[in-house]
């Protein structure tokens, strides 16, 4: 495989409009050489899944600050599966209590980033997810 930019979709499921984090991560990923498709705020899990499949991304990142992650992150995984993108790795971030993380991982969220995670750690982890995904193609 030639070297090419990884493609990542950053989605905001749920209804909260706090996109400071999502935008920062999008920009940081762009500056690290990623092509980032940003969906805008207030997307349903189905919309995010459909976009991820059409855009043929290597990974999907979710940002949510309203506390609805336990419902909506797994809903995105389910929607992806239904849309034929069940193999696309999903990571997430936001105001997520530590005790929720194991449950999210069991639901198929590959990495969870809580507030204060250095962005270089996020980039490294997303890069690894994308590399593994690209190797499968």
């Amino acid at each position, binding site marked *: 495989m030639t070297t090419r930019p990884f493609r990542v979709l950053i989605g905001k499921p*749920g*209804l*909260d*409009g*706090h*996109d*400071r984090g999502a*935008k*920062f991560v*999008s*920009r940081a990923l762009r500056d690290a050489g990623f092509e980032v498709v*940003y969906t*805008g*705020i*207030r997307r*349903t899990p189905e919309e995010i899944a459909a976009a991820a499949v059409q855009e043929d991304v290597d990974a999907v990142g979710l940002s949510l600050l*309203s*506390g*609805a992650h*336990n*419902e*909506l992150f797994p*809903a995105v995984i389910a929607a992806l599966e239904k849309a034929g993108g069940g193999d696309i790795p999903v990571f997430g971030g936001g*105001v997520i*209590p*530590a*005790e929720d993380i194991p449950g999210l991982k069991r639901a198929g969220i590959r990495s969870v980033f*809580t*507030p*204060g995670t*250095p*962005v*270089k750690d996020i980039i490294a982890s997303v890069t690894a997810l994308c590399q593994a995904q690209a190797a499968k193609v």
Partner: protein
Amino acid sequence: MATHPALQDWQDKVLKKMLDKAPEMRPEFTTLSGLPAERVALPTVIDDAYVAKVGFPGQYPYTRGVQPTMYRGRLWTMRQYAGFSTAEESNKRYRYLLDQGTTGLSVAFDLPTQIGYDSDDAIARGEVGKVGVAIDSLADMEVLFNNIPLDKVSTSMTINAPAAVLLAMYVAVGEKQGVPSQKLEGTIQNDILKEYIARGTYIFPPRPSMRLITDIFAWCSQNTPSFNTISISGYHIREAGSTAVQEVAFTLADACAYVDAAIAAGLDVDVFAPRLAFFFNGSSDLLEEVAKFRAARRMWAKIMKERFKAKKPQSQMLRFHTQTAGYTLTAQQIDNNIVRVAMQSLAAVLGGTQSLHTNSKDEALALPTEDSVRTALRTQQIIAYESGIINSVDPLAGSYYVEGLTDTIEREALALMSRIDELGGVIPAIEAGFIQRQIEDAAYTYQSAIETNDRIIVGVNKFQAKESITPPVFRVDASVGANQAAKLKSLREKRDNVKVDAALAALATAAKGTANLMPPILDAVRLYATLGEICNVLRKEFGTYSDLKSR
């Protein structure tokens, strides 16, 4: 002390009038060690420049505050933003807070309510009752204020796009309690422009949204004269990552757009302007924040007087609520947040705020627990009762540093506002993405400085500690969504649906024309039409707005 005619004038006209009307809380104020505390400390020489730029509290240009005696007369309102889950649960929390000494209620609605969806709408999945209370109809609102007499409390409601509907519900609850609308006190946020800019709970495109707002202004000036009809908010602009200068500039630019719209709708500036309130962020750079509040007050006074020709002093006064900066709270070593909040509260009080919400230490993790809410409230009370800051009005005036920063913020914010004017005003500047991009760039710069350790955040990128115990987090009962849905189902069966449909049709007709929308909304609310039903009628007539592209 050299006297200046303006000082005499202020003493005779402004101060005396206030003291006659509302005496100070104590006959005399002293420091902790018994020294006399001056009400308003003044420079040794009072010259024209001082009078024009800094002046005296309670008098134009209000740099030193909107009241001549400030907190010696009355403390700021301690108003804790709260609400979660169902109306029943939130009602309990409000009564707890009132017992603990808060002096005003501040209602947090959940996101479906803020965006005008009923709890049983598919899009509300997972969000019902999460960041605030779920209100679907007047029935929920009745429960929310059960045993809270609306003529005794002032209630602030963080509601924007569907503000007209929630205000109508509040008025209708008042009616049921036998409280006439004329006696209701409180604030609706009702600031849609900052939703497009920073907060995201918009529904309709800008122009019909502005119509809803001016309809509220007009209706309230007749029906709820003691209600603040808007709370023009820089808070969320700052939370989204702006600088202090941008916060002031964008907030005041928004305010100008509302005043323009109201004047264009035929309202008299001195009728609605006294009901405009503001809402700012209290962030961590203590002295910059104090300067920010002072600069904003002076700018607004000048704008109202010079640009909008407002004559009443109340029209020129920038009265504001402050909330401490949520974005500065860290998930690491959460006790540190108590100190941050204390510092930010000091900034707000030293800057002359009218009311204050203090964040709780655990809000970077989840909704606050009852214990941490109490500590946050105690922080305000300690400042009010132990710090001595309230003894003297605008105590930092005359500091070379603070006065200099006040001037700088004013100058830079005015420059930014004129760039917005060049773009044709706030709405075109939003549509062109100018304002959002400015904020995004500032947020990126701020965060990048943290990532590179150029900016230290204690406990995050320096002085880290290994934390073994995870603090208890507050959880909203997961069954709220199902409960609300069940309540809606039975409501729709019980109410008179023929009448509801007729009221919704009348609303649609009004929306097509130019009539004030408050009366048909109030009619629909009284018949228990739901929030989602009412907003769907308006969605159909007005269309919806979609997110802006990020660059």
